């Protein structure tokens, strides 16, 4: 079945080579970082986690979102998702790989990574994050690969993958809960110290992840003639809309708590993010873009008339991805460190090295996704689900 990845047209191979070139460029930046240390990044003693950990957090959400396809299919027997579930699970695999890569590039001593296994420390949330992320990766590889292989051999799916799929549902929730716990259990970081952090993470994951999935499926439709089905896309769009509403609602409850209580520590980061604090406001522009895109995407997604229009849906989803990415992949992690423990503002912006290395990690994820989806498409084409090419 793996051989399907080796038979492609010119377009496929140029895309793969393009990704490999991006990975190559990024790895030069990563080698520079390995040689010189994290001094090549914009991080410092005050903002000690930056772009890498923020992207990690965002992609944990994308990984968890596969469950939005798995639940309707496995718990409610919603057959319309039967053809796209493999693609969703493959996307989860690629996302978890992106997460793990972002953790590795963030480490000061990556060659000591296995100290986490050699000296297991159950009081650290990172210990559990390692377990749930790797477990989720394994679950998704096992389920998606074996089910696809059963299709390939034209036999029914084995029973045990169904059991694993049931397990993967709470497991998906756990990966994002544990990731939220990384932040929300720290004393003295007021912006993160909130019980709804995990809920917020899940809400934003369950809109952003499926949104990315839908866009990728539409690209796949263009490239390979694989039709995910109009109804499947529309149902996913409904899920996305509900999750985004919950996401915005939870964000607003945070704003209410901070400003109605009037506690300075709780307000400070919000003020920094949306207005600027002590004369610093590097993220203000971004945050207002988030507000506008969040409102705009809801305006498009909520009325069924707009949502069911394929072109408008694409616009809405792009806006939604932008809004959630600014919220979680930019504001949340960096904002948590500002102001610092001395109530001073020390700002952060990523350097070109960080961006190149992030590009490398994204490209690795995309390459994994490309290969896995290529195999999926190959099998489905053989089964006649996708029309044969001329």
């Amino acid at each position, binding site marked *: 079945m793996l051989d399907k990845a080796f038979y492609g047209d010119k377009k496929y191979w140029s895309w793969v080579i393009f990704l490999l070139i991006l990975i190559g460029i990024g790895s030069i930046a990563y080698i520079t970082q390995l040689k*010189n*240390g*994290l*001094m090549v*990044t914009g*991080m*410092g*003693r*005050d*903002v*000690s*986690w930056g772009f890498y950990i923020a992207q990690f957090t965002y992609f944990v959400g994308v990984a968890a979102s596969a469950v939005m396809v798995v639940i309707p299919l496995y718990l409610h027997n919603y057959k319309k998702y039967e053809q796209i579930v493999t693609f969703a699970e493959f996307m989860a695999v690629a996302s978890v790989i992106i997460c793990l890569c972002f*953790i590795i590039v*963030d*480490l*000061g*001593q*990556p060659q*000591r*990574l296995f*100290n*986490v296994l*050699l*000296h*297991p*420390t*159950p*009081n*650290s*949330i*990172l*210990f559990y994050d*390692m377990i749930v992320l790797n477990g989720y990766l394994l679950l998704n590889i096992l389920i998606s690969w074996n089910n696809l292989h059963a299709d390939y051999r034209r036999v029914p799916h084995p029973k045990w993958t169904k059991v694993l799929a049931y397990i993967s549902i709470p497991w998906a929730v756990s990966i994002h809960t544990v990731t939220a716990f*990384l*932040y929300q259990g*720290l*004393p*003295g*970081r007021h912006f993160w110290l909130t019980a709804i952090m995990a809920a917020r993470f899940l809400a934003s994951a369950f809109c952003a992840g499926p949104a990315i999935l839908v866009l990728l499926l539409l690209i796949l439709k263009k490239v390979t003639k694989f039709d995910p089905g109009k109804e499947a896309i529309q149902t996913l769009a409904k899920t996305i809309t509900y999750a985004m509403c919950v996401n915005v609602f939870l964000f607003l409850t945070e704003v209410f708590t901070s400003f109605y209580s009037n506690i300075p520590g709780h307000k400070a980061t919000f003020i920094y993010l949306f207005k600027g604090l002590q004369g610093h406001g590097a993220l203000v522009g971004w945050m207002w873009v988030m507000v506008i895109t969040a409102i705009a995407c809801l305006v498009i997604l909520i009325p069924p008339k707009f949502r069911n229009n394929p072109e408008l849906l694409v616009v809405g989803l792009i806006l939604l991805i932008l809004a959630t990415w600014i919220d979680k992949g930019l504001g949340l992690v960096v904002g*948590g*460190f500002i102001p*610092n*423990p*001395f*109530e*001073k503002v*020390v700002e952060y912006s990523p350097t070109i090295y960080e961006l190149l290395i992030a590009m490398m990690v994204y490209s690795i994820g995309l390459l994994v996704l490309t290969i896995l989806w290529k195999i999926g498409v190959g099998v489905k084409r053989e089964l006649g689900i996708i029309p044969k090419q001329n």
Partner: protein
Amino acid sequence: MDNKRRKILKIAAATAAVSFTGLPIETFASYLPKIGKYVKSDKEKKAKQWGMVIDTRKFKTKEDFEKVIEACHSIHNVPEDIPNKKQEIKWIWEEEFTHAFPDQENPFLAERYEHKDVIVLCNHCQHPPCVRVCPTKATFKREDGIVMMDFHRCIGCRYCMAACPYGSRSFNFRDPAPFVKDKNPKFPTRMRGVVEKCLFCYERLEEGKQPACVEASNGAIIFGDILDPNSEIRKVLRENYTIVRKPELGTEPCVFYII
């Protein structure tokens, strides 16, 4: 041959079993043939929880601060003048009162406190969040209460820096060695990619000495066992009104301030 293989398998099985118990591997028979034994220093000062009282009234001039900072940074090979100020390394330094104690700020604070500098360092908390979050036990609490760093084990994830509410931890964003003037041959430097901080001069306590900053402070810093009711530091704590940084976070800092 077979015997040797069996032995290796036994060691592997034992190692796996030990790592599940969660106990440090070196408490069990290790790979090293036991020929010597390990003992504690007989000169070592002992305590249940080391603590410090900083009498901020006695820090008056710039020199009062500098000599204390210099005493620490010079013997611990702390790098100086790292070009990127955001990435500098600090073990003990001066900070304005209102920034060190943000919860003590009010708009009508007496002028003499508003811009008053105080010495800050690792608080060696009784419930340290940095130790709680470390995924490798590279930072841990010693029996005498010192929050210790094992630079050999740190993977540089910087979770401890996110967890510390006092900004006491520094990360080596670059190789610090070129920025250490006159290296102290009795203490190591650090390598890039690990976190470091004040260690309450555990290496001087082992030799029966006081921490370097305490010695250099001319009595402005008092050091002792805060869990020993008869210690000198407890006497000072009984007789003076003291405050700690951010008590509301439940970390129970062991560095106290007389204002």
